[in-house]
């Protein structure tokens, strides 16, 4: 490739980023309120899905506790701001810190297990958070949940205004996205993929496998907790339903739709899942059955998701064009990881 072509390519990238950025930032000024609400939902659910996608794709850790951490952050914030009426930065900071402490405990318990065992252990941990949300009625108000958590008003700027809320969320979302991407591309990311493909060999090479996996688990907890904080301040309500098994599976479905390990793909996954929900609920009450069947078909026939299917097609086209085979992408399907 000549230097000239390289420069043109850089220019093209810059132009593309500028256009996409302008569109994203200008959404509130021209999108109807309903669609802005949908965009906001897509953003916080994508942050949650990204957390799982990162762990599953890079570390081979299918953690079913991420929805629990999401809900925990939301509950802590709601309890502190509604029941204890703490002023602005405190509920948010304590929710984030508290969730990270619980994530550390969960991580310490689960990182020494692999594959299916890791999956069911994290499932049990996440379901225990759900059970506590349901049982500890004096704190969580049980099934009714806690209502009234709202975004703050700082210096006269109300973040309850959807446009302002959206801009803050967009910044946090992009920060999470680029941070996770940086982690994936760093030497640490390489080591993490090493533990995914063979934790025994990585240990033999002198890497501390538990430390690598725990670090990844803690990194992944951050977007999940932040997503929960945005979720509860936007919807104003948190109930045990947010943490339940169906929701966990919903997020897993999104991650598989978007391609496991594909961080940007989660946005597409959430978009499809939300559209699916809108369309299906129009025709039938059996939304969960439809979701379960979709999930089943996906696992059976397209385990690499929509983006995986598209990439597979692209690779096949590339191959026929240039006869030289391209190497397979490093993000393999989850079953490639060791047990």
């Amino acid at each position, binding site marked *: 490739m000549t230097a000239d072509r390289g420069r043109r390519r850089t220019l093209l990238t810059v132009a593309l980023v500028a256009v996409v950025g302008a569109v994203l930032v200008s959404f509130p000024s021209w999108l109807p309120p309903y669609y802005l609400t949908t965009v906001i939902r897509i953003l916080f659910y994508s942050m949650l899905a990204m957390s799982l996608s990162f762990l599953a794709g890079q570390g081979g850790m*299918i953690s079913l506790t991420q929805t629990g951490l999401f809900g925990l952050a939301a509950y802590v914030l709601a309890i502190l701001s509604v029941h204890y009426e703490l002023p602005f930065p405190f509920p948010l900071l304590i929710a984030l810190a508290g969730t990270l402490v619980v994530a550390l*405990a969960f991580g*310490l*318990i*689960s990182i*020494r*297990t692999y*594959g*299916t*065992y890791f*999956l*069911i*252990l994290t*499932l*049990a*941990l996440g*379901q*225990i958070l*759900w*059970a*506590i949300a349901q*049982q*500890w*009625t*004096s*704190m969580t108000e049980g099934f009714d949940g806690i209502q009234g958590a709202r975004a703050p008003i700082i210096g006269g700027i109300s973040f309850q205004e959807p446009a302002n809320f959206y801009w803050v969320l967009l910044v946090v979302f992009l920060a999470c996205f680029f941070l996770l991407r940086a982690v994936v591309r760093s030497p640490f990311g390489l080591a993490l993929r090493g533990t995914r493909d063979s934790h025994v060999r990585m240990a033999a090479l002198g890497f501390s496998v538990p430390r690598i996996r725990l670090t990844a688990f803690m990194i992944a907890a951050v977007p999940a907790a932040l997503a929960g904080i945005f979720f509860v301040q936007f919807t104003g309500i948190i109930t045990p339903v947010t943490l*339940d*098994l*169906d929701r966990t*599976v919903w997020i*897993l479905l999104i991650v598989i739709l978007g391609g496991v390990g594909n961080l940007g793909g989660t946005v597409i996954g959430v978009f499809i899942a939300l559209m699916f929900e809108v369309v299906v609920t129009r025709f039938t*009450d*059996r939304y*969960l*059955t439809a*979701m*379960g*069947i979709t*999930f*089943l078909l996906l*696992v*059976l026939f397209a*385990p690499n998701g929509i983006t995986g299917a598209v990439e597979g097609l692209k690779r096949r086209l590339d191959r026929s064009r240039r006869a030289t085979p391209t190497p397979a992408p490093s993000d393999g399907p*989850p*079953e490639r*990881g060791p*047990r």
Partner: protein
Amino acid sequence: MITEIILVLNGLTHAGLLFVLGSGLTLAFGLMRVVNLSHGAFYLLGGYLGLTVFRLTDNWWLALLAGGLGIALLGFVLEKILLDRVRGRALPETLLTIALSIIIADVSLAIWGGFAQSIRVPAALNPRISLFGFTYPGFRFFILGIAVFIGLGLWFLLQKTKVGAAVRAGVDDRETVSALGIDIHRIFTAVFVLSAFLAGIAGVIGASFLSIQPGADGQILILSLVVVILGGLGSLGGAVVAALVTGLLLSFSRAYFPEMSFFMVFGPMALVLAFRPQGLFGKWT
């Protein structure tokens, strides 16, 4: 003192139910390396089947049989048409069972509705038993009896029969077992169906002394997972000990810390796993 005795008895009853559930789950895992996450949904559907049969025939034994056999049949069909396709790949198989559990629970909701229901145990099976000056429902001893009977039956099956020997050998080394000319796939199917049968029976028992409603599948699944993880995946003896610990803890914490009972159950699991990630009696696979 009387309260404590009642709590111990309640805990033992619960332990019996959890053992029936956990034993099937742990056996299937030990052999196939797959955790059937629709075990909770099997329990729920088994309970509903039993409920319907009981209302039609007024015969508790028939209800128990219907729940067990119905779910065994369902397990057989699902194993043949779905799980067999992804056999050997643990994660897709586990994910499939999650999808199945959601479908089963939602279809059950459509058929049986959203309110809590239970089977009224006939008086012949539920005599009032007087103990140390208080009366206690005899049905609960009966449940304990069923659990012990199933436990002994499983032990006999595993330790004293040829099929059991093949299952135990399959847990340790699948390749060698198939090389010896034993059809390991038939054994997989048999163990999965047995596990489904036990979940169905547990559903009818659960519907008789607790109640069943949407969401019961999720709760029972966590408790069975706790039993299986605590006892060690694949260990029948582990399931006995873990079911006893979990059942008693559940009973006492429901009485003394009603808002925290699930958390109390989770405590020992976390503690054990911190020192023994493979569970009390588990082997690394």
